[in-house]
C-alpha cells in the first residue's frame, strides 16, 4: 500500500467513524400540532404594519433613527425588535420581485426551527420547544445571559439587550408567552393579524406547507385569490397576479426545517438567508456530545484508570508526592 493511499484510508476511516457518531441522532421531527407562519415575499408591500403590531403586542418601543419619528426605523432584530421587514434592492430597483433591477421585502423574525439550535446549545434550558405547538419559548428565570443561543441560531434571532445592565434575551415567541397567550386563546400572531395582503399568513405547519406547495404550482401571471390572516379561516382574501416564484419553500427542509416558511421570487441567498444543509447542526453537535458523555460512562472509566495510574506513580516516590 502506498503511503498516500494509507493516509487517505486512515483519514477516511477517521472521518467516517467520526461522522457515524453524529448519525446517533437524526434531525428532530416537526411537533405534532406545530403552528407557524407562511411569509410570501411576493405579497409584501413593505408597509411594516406587522412590525408596529408586534411592538404593540410585546410592549416594545419603536426604534427611531434621526428625525423619522412617524416610522419605526428598526433595521434589524434587537432587544427592542422581534420582527422586522427588510428591503432588497438591485440596480434600478423598479421591478417588484425581480432579482436584477428589482426590489422586494423580506421578513426577519424567529423561524421557530423544527430542530432548534438555540434550544440545543442553551446550558440552562432557558429556551424550550413546546412539545405540541413547536413554539420556541424563552424562560428568563433560568437564563444566565451567555448568548450561546445567538451563536447557535442559524438566523441570529435571539437578541440580548446589550444596553441594559440587567438585560435579557428577546425573541419572537409567536405571541404565546405568559401574559400574551394569543395562540392558546385561539387567536393568531399579531403580525399575521395586522398584515393587509396576506404576506404573513398564520396556520399549522401542515396547512401552510400545503398552501405553499399549491402556490408553487400556479402559473406566473395568473390571478390567485390569496387568503389573509389564518389559512384555516381567512379574515379576507386578496386577489393578485401570481409572481414567478423560486421553486423552493424555505423552511421545508433547511437544517431540519422551520415552522415559519418563506416563499419568494428572488433567490433566498440574495435575501440574506443562510447557506444551510438539510442536516441540523444541533443534531451533529448533540451526536458528538452524547457519544462522549453518554451516562458519563467514558469519563467515569477514564477517571478510574487515571486514579489507578496516578496512585501507582506517586506511591513509588513517597515524600516527593507533594502535588
Amino acid at each position, binding site marked *: 500500500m502506498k503511503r498516500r493511499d494509507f493516509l487517505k484510508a486512515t483519514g477516511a476511516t477517521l472521518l467516517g467513524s*467520526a461522522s457515524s457518531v453524529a448519525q446517533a441522532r437524526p434531525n428532530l421531527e416537526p411537533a405534532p400540532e406545530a403552528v407557524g407562519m407562511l411569509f410570501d415575499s411576493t405579497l409584501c408591500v413593505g408597509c411594516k404594519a406587522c412590525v408596529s403590531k408586534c411592538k404593540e403586542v410585546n410592549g416594545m418601543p419603536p426604534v427611531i433613527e434621526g428625525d423619522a419619528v412617524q416610522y419605526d426605523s428598526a433595521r434589524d432584530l434587537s432587544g427592542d425588535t422581534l420582527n422586522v421587514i427588510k428591503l432588497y434592492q438591485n440596480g434600478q430597483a423598479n421591478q417588484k420581485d425581480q432579482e436584477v433591477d428589482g426590489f422586494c421585502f423580506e421578513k426577519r423574525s424567529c423561524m421557530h426551527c423544527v430542530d432548534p439550535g438555540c434550544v440545543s446549545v442553551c446550558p440552562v434550558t432557558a429556551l424550550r420547544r413546546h412539545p405540541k405547538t413547536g413554539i420556541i419559548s424563552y424562560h428568563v428565570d433560568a437564563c444566565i445571559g451567555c448568548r450561546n443561543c445567538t451563536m447557535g441560531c442559524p438566523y441570529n434571532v435571539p437578541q440580548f439587550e446589550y444596553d441594559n445592565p440587567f438585560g435579557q434575551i428577546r425573541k419572537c415567541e409567536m405571541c404565546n408567552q405568559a401574559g400574551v397567550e394569543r395562540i392558546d386563546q385561539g387567536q393568531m400572531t399579531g403580525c399575521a393579524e395586522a398584515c393587509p395582503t396576506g404576506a404573513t399568513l398564520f396556520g399549522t405547519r401542515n396547512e401552510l406547507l400545503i398552501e405553499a406547495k399549491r402556490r408553487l404550482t400556479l402559473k406566473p401571471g395568473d390571478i390567485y385569490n390569496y387568503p389573509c390572516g389564518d389559512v384555516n379561516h381567512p379574515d379576507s382574501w386578496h386577489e393578485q397576479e401570481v409572481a414567478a416564484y423560486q421553486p423552493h419553500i424555505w423552511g421545508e427542509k433547511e437544517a431540519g426545517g422551520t415552522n415559519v416558511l418563506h416563499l419568494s421570487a428572488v433567490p433566498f441567498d440574495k435575501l440574506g438567508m443562510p447557506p444551510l444543509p438539510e442536516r441540523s447542526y444541533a443534531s451533529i453537535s448533540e451526536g458528538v456530545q452524547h457519544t462522549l458523555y453518554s451516562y458519563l460512562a467514558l469519563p467515569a472509566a477514564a477517571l478510574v484508570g487515571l486514579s489507578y495510574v496516578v496512585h501507582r506513580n506517586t506511591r513509588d516516590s513517597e515524600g516527593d508526592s507533594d502535588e
Partner: protein
Amino acid sequence: MSNYQPTGGRLLTLPVVLLAVIAGIGLYYLGLRFVHGLGAVTQLNGAHAWGIWVVYDVVIGTALACGGYALAITVYVLNKGQYHPLMRGALTASLFGYALGGLGAFVDMGRWWAFYNIFLPWNMNFNSVMLEVGLCVSAYILVLFIEFSPVLFDKMGAQKLRNALNKVLFLFIALGVLLPTMHQSSLGSLLIAMGYKVAPLWQSLHLQPLLALLTALTMGFSIVIFEASLVNSAFRRHEETPLLSGLGKAIVGLLTVYLVIRFVEIILRDKLGLVLAFDMNSVLFLLETALFVLPLIVLLSPAKRRNGRWLLTAALSMLLAGTLYRFNAFLFTFNPGPGYSYFPSAPEVMVTIGIIALEILVYLLFVKILPILPVEEKQQSH
C-alpha cells in the same frame, strides 16, 4: 522536606507597578460594564454575541493555562518524575489562567447574578456543550486550587494538613488530567452548533473536539517551556533546558498528529481550494499553519531542541499557532451573515489586557512569596 522555595526579593518593583496600573485601567472599564451594560463597553451586536472576552479570556486563556494539565500527564501518568521540579510553576500559572478565564466568563455573562442556574440540576440541558464547559471548568478551578494548596500548607507549616491531603491527592491529580481533557475538547465542540458561521477551513464538525484537545496539549507543553525560560532569565536562574527539550519531543508527536488530521479533513472534504484562494481566510490559514509547522521543524532537530533559544522560539510559535487557530475559528473568519461586523472597542481590549496584566502580576508576587519554583543548584528529586 520541600524542593521548592520562594525567590524572595522586593515586591514593589517597576514591572509590578506598571502591571498594576494596566490592571487598574481594565478594572475601571469592567466597572462601567456592570453599571451601563455590555453594550456600553463592548462592540457586541445582534449576531456577534461573543467577542474577545469570550474568545481570548476563556477559549484561548484556558488553553494557554494548560501547562499544569500537560505536565500532570507527563509526571503522573507517563511517570516521568524528572519533570517534577517544573510542576509547581506550571500549576500556579494554570490556576491563575483558569481562575481569570472563569472571571472572564462571569463578567461576559449577560445575567451574571443568575450564574448559579447552571449548577441547578433541574436547569441542566445535557445536550448543551456549554453546560459541559461551564461545569467542567468550574470543577477544574477547584481541583487546581486543591492541587496548589500544598504550596500554602508549606508556607504555613501546616504539615498535618499536608499529610492528610497527600493521601487523597492522587484522586485530584487524576481529576486534573480528566477534566481539562473534557472541557478543552468541548471548547472546540462549541463551534459545531455555529455551523456555517464558522469558515469552512475551521468547521471540521465531528473533529472539532479532537483538534481543540491536541492544540490545547501542545499549547500546554509550550507554555511550560515558555514560562520556565522566562522565569529563569527574569530571576537569573540557571536554565532547565535539558528538561525542557524533553517536552519539545512531546510537542513533535502531538503536532504531527494534529497536522495530519487537519489536512486529511481538508483534503477529504474538498476544501483544499480554499487554502490556496489567497483571500483573507486563506492567508490566515497559511499563517496559522506556518506557525504550527515552524516548531515542528525546529523540534525535529535534536541539536536545536537542546538549544534554549531555539526551544523558546518553537514554544512561542506554537503558542501563537494555537492562539491564532482559536481566534480564526471563533472571531477572525466568523461570518454570521450580511449586515453584521465586529471589531472590539478600546475599552473592551483594555479589559482583556487588564486581566492578562493582573494574571502576570499575581504570578510574580506569588513566586516571590510562596515556595513555587524549584530550589537552585540541586534539583534532583528522589
